[in-house]
């Protein structure tokens, strides 16, 4: 198994959680912080294997919860659910199309907070919820939809820059070369 893509994805998840905790621009402008982990999960589930999906869900979720008042593990299970759902049906998805990526990002961005809140409420916790949470949910979903195609573009570029590219096969075959001239 090639571990390089998995390491890139985990590093990106680490950086994403760091940015979510330290950059408050989106919170200031839109009243909600965008979550980048569902976006990464969409990319991982469409391009990587089962092990990377589990690693991203566990590491990304625990990193996120460790900087939050969420109980540890609250973000892991929804992320894992999203990843497995996409992974199981990825052969049926038109993953090369930007529109499909946007829709998947939108759905993942919307599903992740709902799943986490479902767990929090079942644990008897009282997160800050009200009518304004609907606006935050819309921002999270739209954020996921916008960022997902960008995430694909970024990783594709990284992949081209750092991975060996297969040599393209030409139609030239020496045994079938037409020799011209008198010789």
């Amino acid at each position: 198994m090639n571990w390089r893509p998995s390491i890139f994805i985990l590093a990106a998840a680490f950086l994403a959680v760091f940015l979510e905790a330290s950059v408050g621009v989106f919170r200031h402008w839109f009243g909600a912080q965008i979550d980048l982990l569902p976006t990464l999960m969409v990319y991982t589930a469409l391009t990587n294997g089962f092990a990377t999906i589990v690693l991203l869900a566990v590491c990304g979720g625990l990193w996120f919860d460790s900087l939050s008042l969420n109980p540890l593990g609250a973000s892991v299970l929804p992320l894992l659910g999203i990843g497995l759902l996409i992974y199981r049906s990825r052969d049926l998805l038109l993953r090369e199309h930007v529109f499909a990526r946007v829709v998947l990002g939108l759905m993942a961005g919307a599903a992740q907070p709902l799943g986490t809140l479902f767990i929090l409420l079942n644990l008897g916790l009282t997160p800050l919820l009200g009518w304004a949470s609907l606006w935050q949910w819309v921002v999270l979903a739209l954020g996921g939809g916008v960022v997902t195609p960008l995430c694909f573009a970024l990783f594709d570029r990284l992949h081209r820059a750092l991975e060996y590219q297969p040599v393209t096969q030409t139609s030239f075959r020496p045994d079938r070369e037409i020799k011209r001239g008198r010789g």
Partner: protein
Amino acid sequence: MLKKSHYIILIFVVLLMLALLRLPGGTMGRLKLAISGPFVALFGAAGATRELTSHAEDALTPRSELQRQIGELRRQNQDLQLRLQQDSQLWSENARLRAEAGWARQGRWKVKLARVIARDPANWWRSLEIDLGARDGLRTNLPVLTPDGALAGRVLNVGETRSQVILLGDPNLRVAAKVATSGLTNFETGIITANSSAPQEDGMIDMDHLSGNSAAQPGQNVVTWGVGGVFPGGIPIGKIVDTRTTENGLTTEARVMLAAKLGALEEVWVMLP
């Protein structure tokens, strides 16, 4: 598409997460600080970058502007020295009167400045991380103030070099508060809770359990009451915006605009015992 080994891994992960979710508060807090440990280097780098930017700005500031600022700071310093002198006299007078009345001696607040290094990435909690920890004498439940001296929250979890602070407006932080309704002796008490109707407005909170015929009015100051053993009395919280009687008519609720701008905090004071 999933193999048998995949299902075994999934069951293991789900069981592990369920076990983590059920961990007691203290253990979970320590585990969280351990898991977020690798972020320390990045937070340090981000802080260093901010400092560099600030130094670069200082270098670009014209000399005349710097001299104007120095002059202004000198004037402020003289003013504060004078106030400190008056305060010292008042303090000693207060201590003498307390001793004559047989009241407990009041100690001065000891505070330590901390830098905010991270905020809660989840939208449904209000918390932040600061760069002081057990090494600096911090422990749980210490009050946290803004640079202006208004209440910001309290310390929730303490690591060796970092601590997690729960902010006003989080559903898990309740503060006993009072409103001076008329004069110095008449006051009404209530409980500060999160404002659930507008959670994105981190400047607005609720004050519940005021009496049904409360005389609290918009514009009145809300401060900590000082009961409960966590927050000393008299720390500014905010101003009342409006009040309304609850459905059963027994109590009054007030909306309070926080004195602290919690969304823009970069530094905080931690009150040490």
